[in-house]
């Protein structure tokens, strides 16, 4: 057993199995084609299951995959076969809920692509090189969207429209919290 729980990959696919955002932390899939083959296999195998209320689980080529769907988005977290399933599930739940917060409840592909930067930052805050950084969705979302502007930034660096835009976002996000 690994001395530290480790995550092999996190996948966010759409309802046709295409990538929205994926992140691999293990060398098990060295090339893009092996990655795509894995995604396809996982997608096809899990497609018909109902993973909308509770996270589901499956074994895959000596890996454990936990997954959950929302609208046209499919969330997957993969770990080694000796990994504690509930740890994987907690990572999945953290990712799933954080995305929900960041997309303001509109968990669907279009919204996710429009806010891809947030999704990528979200992945970055959950796992670092396979090691779990954080699993609490609120903390993760908070880290991704906590701030928009460095208070020390000189105003001269912003144009009026930028300032307005950032102000709008600031407001929107503070409402969110």
């Amino acid at each position, binding site marked *: 057993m690994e001395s530290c729980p480790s995550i092999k990959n996190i996948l966010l696919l759409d309802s046709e199995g295409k990538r929205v955002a994926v992140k691999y932390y293990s060398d098990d899939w060295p090339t893009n084609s092996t990655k795509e083959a894995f995604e396809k296999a996982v997608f096809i195998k899990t497609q018909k299951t109902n993973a909308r209320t509770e996270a589901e689980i499956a074994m895959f080529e000596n890996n454990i995959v936990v997954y959950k769907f929302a609208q046209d988005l499919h969330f997957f977290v993969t770990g080694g076969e000796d990994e504690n399933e509930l740890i994987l599930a907690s990572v999945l739940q953290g990712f799933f809920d954080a995305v929900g917060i960041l997309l303001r409840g509109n968990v669907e592909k279009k919204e996710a692509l429009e806010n891809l930067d947030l999704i990528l930052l979200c992945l970055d805050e959950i796992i*670092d090189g396979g090691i779990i950084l954080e699993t609490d969705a609120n903390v993760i979302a908070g880290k991704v969207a906590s701030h928009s502007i460095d208070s020390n930034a000189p105003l001269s660096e912003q144009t009026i429209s930028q300032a307005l835009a950032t102000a709008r976002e600031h407001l929107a996000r503070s409402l969110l919290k």
Partner: protein
Amino acid sequence: MAQPLVKKDDDYDDEEEYSPFLGIEKGTVLQEARVFNDPQLDTRKCSQVITKLLYLLNQGETFTKVEATEVFFGVTKLFQSRDIELRRMVYLMIKELSPSSDDVIIVTSSLMKDMNSKNDMYRANAIRVLCRITDGTLLTQIERYLKQAIVDKNPVVASAALVSGIHLLQTNPEIVKRWSNEVQEAVQSRAPLVQFHALGLLHQIRQNDRLAINKLVSSLTRGTARSPLAQCLLVRYASQVASESAANSQTGDRPLYDFLDSCLRHKSEMVILEAARAIAELNGVTSREVTPAITVLQLFLNSPKPVLRFAAIRTLNKVAMTHPMAVTNCNIDMESLISDQNRSIATLAITTLLKTGNESSVDRLMKQITNFMSDIADEFKIVVVDAIRSLCLKFPLKYRSLMNFLCNILREEGGFEYKKVIVDSIVILIRDIPEAKENGLLHLCEFIEDCEFTYLSTQILHFLGIEGPKASDPSKYIRYIYNRVHLENATVRACAVSTLAKFAVMVDSLKPRIYVLLRRCLFDSDDEVRDRATLYLKTLGADGSVLVNEKDVPEILFGSLDLPLGNLETSLKNYEPSEEPFDLDSVPKEVRSQPLAEKKGSGKKPNGLGAPPITLASSVDAYEKMLRSIEEFAGFGKLFKSSASLELTEAETEYAVNVVKHIFDRHVVFQYNCTNTIPEQLLENITVVVDASEAEEFSEVVSKPLRSLPYNSPGQTFVAFEKPDGVAAVGKFPNVLKFIVKEIDPSTGEAEDDGVEDEYQLEDVEVVAADYMLKVAVSNFRNAWESMGEDGERVDEYGLGPRGSLAEAVRAVIDLLGMQPCEGTEVVPTNVRSHTCLLSGIFIGNVKVLARLSFGLDASREVAMKLVVRSDNEAVSDLIHEIISCG
């Protein structure tokens, strides 16, 4: 007409999903990336471009080196903006690009500035980025900051530093190990995840220091960790300590068991599962110890969460392998899981039930499984078939219903792997349960009537040829077999012909009828089928001519080849057509990495006179080829054995040297594999000076130096000794590596002209008796033993003194003799007081040796051994005893 067209357009729009990245192209985005260079930065625009670049990378697009460098340089300019969001994207982008070490230098100062910023988010992220792209030299510069960060009061910063530490431990262990005081402090942190990361890092730093781990675990298990994750780690480490110390004491209570047990009542399910699994996997866990774990897992079985049910049933499945009785309490819960939506859970439930079920429940279970089989995928079916096979072997009386089940599913649809498992299972059952034979064979016959897999058809035909003639009424199989000759492809037809011939050999009454069938095969369209039919008709004497003694026929036609097919294949490839026929005896019989026999010279003279292809050979063939190609050793005759390589230097020294001992009848060759691990040096004229003064029977004949040894490309030097013919001479050889060192000019990469002579002390090489023994397995030890007879038998008893365990004593003796354990007897069951181990081997001079070792353990842990050796040569039997009494 216009109306529907418009409508169609609308539909089209709906179907075509909107995506902000629609029609995105790498070239365009790279163009857009020029905004990074604008003097007046548009931060929103820059963020968007980075997102697009990340999107491309995420979709599997790759950047060329030039493109990546360009983007990287552009991104570094963005450090002048103080927009936090943009900065976050910059961090992400740098991590994705993983710049080369030459480029890293450009962002180092910016990142170091961020590392000391007042903004915690900057600090945390800058640490993670910097540690991701850093190398050893840079790391020493920032080490000071990282140590501070580990004990930082902001948990995000501390976690960032600790997690980076875990990664860096792989590449720069010596630096990270210096941080253990800070990490130790972080373990006491109030922030739950900091404690988790600190614990993970501390354990990895100390993992080779068992005492430190013991201390760490026992101090922490007194309290509770602040997060379920940290508690899980603690459980993992505690179970490691528990299983290691159990191996030592073996008495009284298992240390830390109470802690694991208490974790079963933790409020987090994650920890409960971890603890239950840890207990279930303890070495030699008793039923009493495992029961509380099973109780909590049983509760999980009824959870609404699939993940939890899966985790529980998977653990129970493992426990059922060793403690089936302890799991029976869960049978009712598991039976309800057979209808679980999640098929993985259902399959695990079934296979567990098959292990825990008793004889009376088999029939009921089979009924449930039959319904279940139709709606699961092949991969699950395979698991179920395996489980049913072991169940049938466990309850042979139930073979009828189980065999029927297997035969039914054999008739249904399924892929090759699935069918193969079923056929294999039926074959095993036929072999092990005599009553099942007739029935099983008929089912197999019916299966090949309609089998689309050539491989399975031929396997079954072969099996029929062995078992069919021994059945009560062999004639009833002939029809099925002969049908194959009509209906199948050439491979199956040829196989069917062989099977028919086997029946003819074994069953005299069928002979005339089979001859008729075989004669018909003479008109087959395929060469192989005709050839086989002709061969069998001739050798069986169907036409009245007697070619061979009738008694020899079965042996000649169907006797086993007794050779590893892989070796035969290589030998045939090496064989060059010549006057001399191919000699089967020249094929090595050794399955493992040592060659047994070497060919008899002709047509295989060393060819490369200039530069013999010296490679780092490891496998049998490679050794043979290499030694053959070296002129000096060509006259040594056939290679008897090559040892595994033996390190002669400590790991991580300047020069890495290991030795392989090649044993010939009258010679021993030491092959030294040398590696130069210093980039600034070139070694020339390398030899190993061997002092054979203590090994009287050996005299050095050749020393073959290595001309040059550049950095990190291994090379070989050889020393050969002569020894008395066929004698197992032993001895110890101190050696010194001698060479000329030349410095390499780092600017040009050229070696300087002048070198300095130097030498390097290596560890001693020992030639031991086991070097003269080949590991050769025999398939049936009892037969081999009895056929050897008592003439060359030698018996004696030995006291081996106190040993940790029987297993240790057995291993030591096997290693000492260098013989092949047979029939799995090298494995000693736990907690037994006596054990018998069977060994076989071939001693130099081609003498077969068999040994039977009986071990016993008395109350004071003294091990006694009785050794019975049989061989063709009494002197060798005596020698084996000498080896034991000297060792």
